[in-house]
């Protein structure tokens, strides 16, 4: 192990790690809205709208994230869609995780016993009020865990953005391995950074989970 080299490249990798955090957090943030939109579309009476949402989710989950990224980045310009690499990473990440997240959200809402919303409705709660104050708080515990897992998957998948030349953690690591010929040192450092990021996210998920379940007795 060459520790001098490790000290030397740490600032570079930390800067690259910030790009990873930046892209992932923005993709997760926008992805949440995509997911809510997809869940909402699936509640429509008009069947073609539901089919559109189901079809979208199926196609996104059935094709590789990597191919989606290449399609939008290299194929987008022929549709008049020119995105710079970072925006492209955020947009594709958001639309990708949105599909997975909508399934997680729908699953957790459906896991709440139907009697709960029926009881609320018969007690005079409105449809929206039933959803917001009866169903969602009970769905929250499951939802936080499953959405959290998806967020961690997205952080790991954000490494693929390096292919469209965004200087994030994996790209920087690959470049440093190429210029220093010290794969073990660089890999150790960059793996450590991914692990720190992922454990930080896991900590946030755990806090959110505790807060969501503070009134429930288990």
């Amino acid at each position, binding site marked *: 192990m060459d520790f001098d080299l490790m000290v030397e490249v740490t600032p570079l990798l930390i800067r690259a790690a910030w790009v990873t955090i930046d892209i992932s957090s923005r993709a997760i943030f926008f992805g949440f809205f995509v997911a809510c939109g997809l869940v909402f579309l699936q509640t429509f009476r008009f069947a073609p709208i539901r089919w559109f949402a189901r079809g979208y989710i199926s196609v996104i989950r059935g094709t*590789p994230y990597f191919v989606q990224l290449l399609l939008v980045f290299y194929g987008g310009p022929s549709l008049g869609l020119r995105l710079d690499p970072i925006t492209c990473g955020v947009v594709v990440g958001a639309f990708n995780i949105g599909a997975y997240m909508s399934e997680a959200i729908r699953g957790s809402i459906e896991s709440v016993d139907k009697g709960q919303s029926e009881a609320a409705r018969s007690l005079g709660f409105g449809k929206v009020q039933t959803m917001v104050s009866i169903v969602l708080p009970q769905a929250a515990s499951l939802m936080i865990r499953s959405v959290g897992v998806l967020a961690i998957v997205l952080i790991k998948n954000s490494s693929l953005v390096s292919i469209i030349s965004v200087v994030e953690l994996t790209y920087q*690591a690959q470049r440093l391995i190429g210029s220093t010929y010290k794969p073990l040192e660089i890999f150790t450092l960059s*793996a450590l950074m991914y692990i720190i990021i992922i454990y930080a996210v896991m900590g946030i998920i755990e806090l959110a989970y505790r807060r969501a379940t503070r009134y429930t007795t288990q």
Partner: protein
Amino acid sequence: MEFDFTPVVTYFPTLLKGVGVGSLVAIAVALMSVIGGLVVAVISIYTKKLVSWPLRFFIWLFMTTPLLLQLYFLYFGLGEWILIPAIVVGILGLGFHYMAYNADIFIATIKSVSDGQYEASRSLGFGHWNTILYIIVPQAFIRSIPQLGNNMILMVKDTSVLSAIGVAELVYASQYAISVSFRPFEFFIVIALMYYVINILMELGQAWLERQTAYRR
């Protein structure tokens, strides 16, 4: 904005060759990751901490870092000592990655097999390792099939990432055709469609396999 799919038709044999290489890689990785995952799981449950802890550390390491980073490390790291073809690095990298995920599943399902099974088998005269091999592992394997199927579907999608280290699978095979024809959109749409079809076929296969084994669970 008009689409021209003639280059895709012209280069379709190249794409099919890419599908062939990708399938070969996927089959090799599936065998390696399922068998390897099972071995790793059994060893890390039933041996001394000196052996099992390093194994668990590697499972954890492979699960917490991105696939692409592992591939770069293997590709450039191994490349320092020996010259091996990209496809071997690809199979090893993807294989180790999914071996860790499968081992994680096997550890959970092996532990879910009731202790009574072990005790009953021992009292009927099976040895320790024979019990594990003939009684515990088959039951655990059947229970793992749904999650293994999910992992294998994810793995097939991840073969596309191997193009980054130069494995001649579908995405890589299209690179030359795209650079000649300047039609990235058409090519990537067709590639996405091919992956989608493969994915649907795999989902059908998984559902069939689960139906076939349901009564044993």
